[in-house]
């Protein structure tokens, strides 16, 4: 083999000459940018679909009494809203961002395993079909909640099996995707890019990928036990045979709590990327950010039973999980303080990505503090399975994860498309989303404290006013996202030409390549000083 740069194109020979166009460009893709794009569009489609389910939920809850759907359909809506938002919207969106940005940020020519990368994406499609088609099988979609607790989920029909297999396939996709990301980060960094020089987004994704590889197989095991309990006569979750329904909850949340951090750590990475850019100041406390992320990841494996405070664990278990959960707020707090210190004495401007980031810091902290309230076991006894919890995890997952993704999309969109997005419309999208989000979810703290259980299609009249406000907010939130779609499409089709650096304060390898980023980047590794 030749060693010259000119000849090295021939090494990945099929690449340069037989470059398919049209549909085949996407189906057969081995290009991290194209695959990232597919991930992002897929997640947006799922975001809208699961959002539509949420509109159904809020329509029914607009007033007391049953108006639109029967209780069993309502349960299907909540179950699939949760499953699809988590596995179809949030997680793939982060993987999409990782696909686009990780190789660009570390100066790699592509992901370590480009074909597996495409496989991870294409596995999402059958899983999504299984989940969405389950609405049309006899008995309707799974209705036992996204957590699928037995024995309720053992009662369900064919759709529960479809959901379980969808989770298996999503698990394969996530594990393969994570192996790919870890390998890329460890093995494909440009010369001179030491671990402690990596951008925070890369760091958070590295740790997230570890969490995924450790947690997803456990979920696969949990749902496998569920399916054998359903069809093959095992008694893992049946007391008559010596099992325990709560065993499923332990196994599920052993996955489920790391999963929570899987959905927030990359968001932290995005914030740590955007805030320094628009503060025109380096990230404060880089090292402590890395250690805090790692600490959160490690702790995430020993806090799972705080989802199960009302199952009646022995005192020792309850105390352990309460203390470990409270402890997580220390590294999380460090992160928030670091972001504030990054802004402090900066020279800030407030383009749309920065607006989203500042809002996330503010709103995520609300979600973090209500999380601390829920961690206090006696208080959680009153809050478990109420709307307070619904408010809490939407503050973390919507205004934490989803809004970070939106901020990230605005931030990198010029690099991807070569055009600046419409700043004015972007700001409109930000303000409508933020306001509508708070109108939807802030009142839920009160309905929850006042005693409204979650996952009910109908409620006592004392909760009517707040539910009506939440529903109005939810519809506004839903409609706002159409604006997002419009801004993105408009940006793809044209707009002011973006410079290579795009943002005045941007640093890092991704800003050294052209905008739009060429199909192949860093085929000769850059030298990082």
């Amino acid at each position, binding site marked *: *083999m030749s*060693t010259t740069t000119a000849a*090295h194109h021939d090494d990945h020979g*099929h*690449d340069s000459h*037989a470059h398919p166009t049209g549909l*085949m460009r996407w189906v*057969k*893709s*081995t290009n991290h940018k194209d695959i990232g794009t597919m991930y992002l569009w897929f997640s947006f489609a799922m975001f809208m679909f699961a959002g539509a389910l949420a509109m159904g939920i809020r329509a029914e809850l607009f007033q007391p009494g049953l108006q639109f759907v029967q209780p069993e359909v309502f349960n299907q809506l909540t179950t699939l809203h949760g499953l699809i938002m988590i596995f179809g919207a949030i997680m793939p969106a982060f993987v999409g961002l990782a696909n686009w940005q990780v190789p660009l940020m570390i100066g790699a*020519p*592509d992901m*370590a*395993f*480009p*074909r*597996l990368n495409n*496989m991870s*994406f*294409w*596995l999402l*499609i*059958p899983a999504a*079909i*299984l989940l969405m088609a389950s609405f049309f099988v006899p008995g309707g979609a799974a209705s036992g909640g996204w957590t699928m607790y037995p024995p309720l989920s053992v009662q369900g029909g*064919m759709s529960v*099996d*479809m959901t379980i*297999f*969808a989770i298996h396939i999503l698990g394969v996709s996530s*594990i393969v995707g994570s*192996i790919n990301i870890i*390998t890329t980060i*460890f*093995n494909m960094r440009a010369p001179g890019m030491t671990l402690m020089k990596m951008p925070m987004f890369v760091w958070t994704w590295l740790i997230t990928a570890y969490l995924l*590889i*450790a*947690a997803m*197989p*456990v979920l696969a*095991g*949990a749902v496998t*036990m569920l399916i054998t309990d*359903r*069809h093959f*006569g*095992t*008694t*893992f979750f049946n*007391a*008559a*045979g*010596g*099992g*325990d329904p709560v*065993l499923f909850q*332990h*196994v599920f949340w*052993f996955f489920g709590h790391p999963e929570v951090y899987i959905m927030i750590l990359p968001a932290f990475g995005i914030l740590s990327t955007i805030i320094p850019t628009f503060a025109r100041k380096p990230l404060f406390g880089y090292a402590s950010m890395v250690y805090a992320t790692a600490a959160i990841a490690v702790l995430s494996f020993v806090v799972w039973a705080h989802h199960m405070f009302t199952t009646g664990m022995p005192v020792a278990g309850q105390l352990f999980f309460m203390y470990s959960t409270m402890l997580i707020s220390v590294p999380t707090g460090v992160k928030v303080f670091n972001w504030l210190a990054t802004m402090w004495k900066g020279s800030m401007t407030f383009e749309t990505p920065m607006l989203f980031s500042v809002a996330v810091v503010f709103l995520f902290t609300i979600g973090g503090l209500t999380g601390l309230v829920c961690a206090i076991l006696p208080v959680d006894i009153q809050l478990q399975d109420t709307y307070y919890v619904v408010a809490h995890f939407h503050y973390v997952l919507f205004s934490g994860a989803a809004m970070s993704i939106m901020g990230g999309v605005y931030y990198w969109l010029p690099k991807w498309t070569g055009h600046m997005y419409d700043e004015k419309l972007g700001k409109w999208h930000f303000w409508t989303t933020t306001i509508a989000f708070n109108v939807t979810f802030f009142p839920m703290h009160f309905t929850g404290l006042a005693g409204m259980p979650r996952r009910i299609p109908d409620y006592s009249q004392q909760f009517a006013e707040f539910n009506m406000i939440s529903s109005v907010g939810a519809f506004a939130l839903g409609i706002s996202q159409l604006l997002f779609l419009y801004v993105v499409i408009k940006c793809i089709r044209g707009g002011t030409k973006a410079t290579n650096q795009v943002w005045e304060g941007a640093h890092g390898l991704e800003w050294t390549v052209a905008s739009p980023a060429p199909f192949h980047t860093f*085929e000769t590794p850059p030298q990082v000083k």
Partner: protein
Amino acid sequence: MSQDNKSYFLPGPSFWPLISSISLFLLAGGFTMMLNKVAMGKPIFIAGIISLAYLLFGWFKEVIGESVSKFYNKQVDKSFRWGMGFFIFSEVMFFFGFFGALFYARNVSVPWLADAKLLWPDFVAGWPTSGPGLTEAFTAMGPWGLPAINTLILLTSGVTLTWAHWGLMKNKRTQLKVGLALTILLGAIFLYLQMHEYAEAGFTIKTGIYGATFYMLTGFHGLHVTMGAIMLAIILFRVMKGHFNSHDHFGFEAVAWYWHFVDVVWLFLFIFVYWL
């Protein structure tokens, strides 16, 4: 040798990802239908198996082809190592879930059930148990006898595989082939004995939590041994074709890692499922 290949190999456009997606869709859809007694289930499931076999065969053939064409440099080799290592880690976590269920049943749920005298007045905690609601008598599986022999067989297979590896390192091809063949043979004997044990067992997967944990743990382990043996057979086939040399043999090593991982899982099984 591919050391001189400076740039990282990036494969061109590929159909395999789409085929993997289609075959898993057929498998999942078909199996769901079979479980729910829908007539079309079986043919769809079989189509899924065929397409999965085609996928594995075709994709690995392509990768092996690239490998022998020296497209891969040291860095790619390292990627494969990271990848395989983390794949095995994910498998460890899968078994961890099932072992967790076993420990939970033995140390938490069974004692709790025995304490719930109001519901299960006659139930006494102990292991093995089929739980308070299923009262049919059964005979548990003891550790000495077949399981102990199987332990020896698997441990020996680990030794023969390492011996084969030494052969490869020292370029003694005969030792390599004999070692591999012996390992596969031992794996096959293990599987045969395991099936025999299942056939003779005095309980089924429906025998409460004991039957459930026993068959799920040993069953998934057996499945992994089967896959490992098939992979070893492919490696043997490649050795016959003259693939691998003392410094370029990651395919061999990956399968060896996998085999040792399966060995270690068995040791845990022997201790916690059969013995204690």
